[in-house]
């Protein structure tokens, strides 16, 4: 039996076969000037495809990097692998159903994805939410914020090559998720907020778990952070990496921790207060450096503030109903309503239009991850391949929200 001889790489027939097999990525036909510019290779440059199945692209982002040696010259993010058309789905489901459809947007902090549309529907319907329900929303929301930031800490360290912090932070995150599961019934996609209140009152399991956890949370979170904050390798890699200055941050519509790390103390909880945040005492941490380290440290400061808020919520929690009295079928008057909440990644906002039926005429969802992902085009060029994922992780986008 003879083995078939392999043709050499110079063989045009092999080139065609490889292209057919998809090994040589055919360069797409340039549709815009920008594409033309990007796919024209200079001297010593090459294209490197990262994702959608790369180990550290945070979901299914694909980035085509134009590299010269190890240095990234230019990049082209390719989005849409998680696109579900959620805004269109929302137009065809009634107001109660929409909430569960919006949960998987930012699956890491899904309470905030529910919160802003629920608030806008309440504005459309002129519903007064009971105070206990508002306190429960703040309490569970801040827990979810801590869980999200814990996940950020773990992923960020993992993208820099540290394998332990993610497991340490997951221990805390898992405890929070168990708590939220006790009160909401689900561990990731909670589907908990309702128009006019929340789905269930705080129960014994939640309260006992929360009481246990609050007693040791501070010390344990500090221990997890100490693993990175005092690590010379980590600090040297993160400091001065992907510096986002104040003007650029404002110009690129950055919100949330990424904006505050660039020195702008803008927090919707204080700037446009909603829910019961005016009654609670907390600071808005800001940092002026605007680099990856500042973004990381700022999130850790936010965790401390969230612990403060949770503590106050537990002390000030009023008695009373958790749902406003509402008809089963909701038909708001025709009109528009806008609402925004401060999520762990920035401003989640929602613009709802109603034409008087039980389904919204249009639901526009503003997601911070999409805008933050735009920043990678500004921050990455000039850095090394090793830093591309570190910069992207420090911006903390979630692909579910980007692709919607």
């Amino acid at each position, binding site marked *: 039996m003879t083995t078939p001889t392999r043709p050499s790489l110079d063989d045009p027939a092999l080139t065609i076969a*490889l292209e057919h097999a998809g090994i040589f990525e055919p360069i797409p036909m340039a549709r815009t000037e920008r594409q033309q510019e990007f796919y024209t290779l200079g001297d010593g440059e090459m294209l490197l495809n990262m994702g959608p199945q790369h180990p550290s692209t945070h979901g299914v982002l694909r980035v085509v990097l134009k590299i010269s040696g190890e240095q990234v010259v230019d990049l082209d993010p390719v989005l849409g692998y998680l696109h579900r058309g959620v805004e269109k789905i929302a137009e065809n489901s009634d107001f109660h159903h929409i909430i569960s459809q919006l949960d998987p947007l930012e699956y890491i902090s899904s309470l905030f994805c529910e919160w802003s549309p629920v608030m806008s529907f309440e504005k459309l319907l002129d519903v007064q939410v009971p105070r206990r329900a508002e306190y429960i929303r703040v309490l569970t929301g801040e827990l979810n914020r801590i869980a999200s930031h814990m996940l950020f800490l773990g992923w960020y360290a993992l993208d820099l090559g540290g394998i332990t912090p993610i497991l340490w932070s997951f221990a805390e995150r898992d405890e929070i998720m168990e708590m939220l599961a006790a009160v909401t019934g689900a561990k990731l996609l909670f589907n908990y907020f309702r128009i006019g209140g929340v789905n269930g009152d705080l129960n014994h399991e939640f309260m006992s778990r929360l009481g246990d956890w609050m007693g040791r949370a501070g010390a344990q979170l500090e221990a997890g952070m100490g693993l990175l904050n005092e690590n010379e390798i980590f600090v040297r890699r993160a400091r001065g990496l992907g510096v986002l200055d104040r003007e650029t941050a404002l110009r690129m519509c950055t919100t949330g921790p990424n904006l505050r790390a660039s020195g702008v103390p803008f927090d919707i909880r204080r700037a446009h207060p909603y829910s019961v945040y005016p009654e609670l005492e907390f600071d808005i941490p800001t940092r002026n450096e605007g680099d990856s380290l500042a973004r990381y440290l700022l999130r850790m400061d936010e965790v401390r503030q969230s612990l403060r808020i949770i503590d106050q919520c537990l002390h000030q929690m009023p008695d009373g109903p958790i749902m406003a009295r509402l008809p089963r079928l909701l038909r708001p008057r025709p009109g528009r309503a806008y609402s925004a909440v401060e999520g762990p990644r920035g401003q989640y906002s929602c613009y709802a239009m109603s034409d008087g039926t039980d389904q919204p005429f249009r639901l526009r969802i503003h997601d911070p991850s999409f805008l933050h992902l735009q920043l990678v085009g500004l921050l990455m060029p000039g850095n090394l391949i090793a830093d591309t994922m570190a910069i992207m992780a420090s911006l903390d986008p979630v692909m579910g929200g980007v692709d919607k």
Partner: protein
Amino acid sequence: MVSAYWNRLSLGSRAILVLVPVLLVVGAVLTVAAALLLGPLLDFINANLPLGRFVLAATALIVITIPIAFLIIYMELKVIAAINLRVGPDRVGPFGALMSVVHGLKVLSKEDFTPLGVDVPIFTLAPIVVFASIPLTLLVIPFAPGLYGQDFNLALLYFFAIGGMSVVGLMMAGWASFNKYSLLGALRAAAQAISYELPLTLSVVGIIILAGTMSLNSIVHQQAGSLFDWNIWKQPLGFIIFFIAATAEANRTPLDMTEADQELVAGFATEYSGMRFGFFFFAEYVNVFVVSALSAVLFFGGWNAPFDWPFPVTVSLDPGGLGLGLIFLIALAPVVGTIILGLPFWLLSSRISTLRALVTGFVLFNLLIVAAFFGWAFVSAAWVSGLVWMMLKTFVFVFIFVQMRGTLPRVRVDQLMSFAWKWLLPASLLNIFVTATAVSILANR
């Protein structure tokens, strides 16, 4: 009638029925052949003793890499699990100890895939080149007095030269893989090897100046004595440089640029699968062992004990002089020992049956004999105690490597390079300068 009998047999019985006569015939033939050829064979081995020793050592070193790699993989799984607040493997074998064996079997049973477009001969050879350099470096390391592959005056130079050969294999893998990530990983490997071979080699020049030889065996002999005769006290800076550079040389976190999985998927090994990938994996772990062993040999006294045994032990057991006592030992000691050791169990607990107590006693007796044998070997045979000390020291360093992987993030590639050229290289030159000056001053005084 024969076939009916045959059909009633189980598979194992059939195998025994067939194999026993076959083995008898083969054994008889071999015995006759040995009787005829043993004399000339022994003469040949006696005539070519160095060659025989080399072949034996090379074979032994290739074979011992397997348990060493399994042990280090298991250690890494368990230690990193402990650091990560996990349990780690605990299903296969006691405390999951057979996990790495299962890993090996898994790798063996996977498809050995050759992607389209790779340069097949180089792609196939690369893992072999990477793996082959490791037992070759083990060849010069003295594990115990008299227990080494080869000892010659250029051993250290040979070690670094052969150790650098694995980079050639990595380059081959990266280039032949027809993958951009592999290529980047391979180029990083080459750049890193060039940057870190220099401080690695220069950091041990201080020891060469002190020892006056590059033979590892003589270096170990010169560190004989107690803890304070080890080279670490004379060359602390050299050891720090050596250890950092060795981390890079073994491609371990935080300096594992070549296979940074968050950046380059799996670096040079991206396109490999099955046992070819297994070879890279294997080589990495054995390399950790080799580097740790060299640290122990150069700086921590090799097989020398850290302290002299505080009280003299002389075991003068001459079996031939025992006479009737020997018969007693062989025939009666197991029985008496079993009964004596099993008696407490039988007496103290009514729930233990007589048979069980006897079995427990027998097991305990055997354990005692094994322990006594090893204790006797440790005390009376220099190579046993030497091997034990050497392995202890080596695995302390292996543990440090594993722990570093559990705790530290990865250094960026440009920081890696600038650290090598701006800090390690000048520091190692300074180390050479200070050592040479001190040696010449002390010699002239």
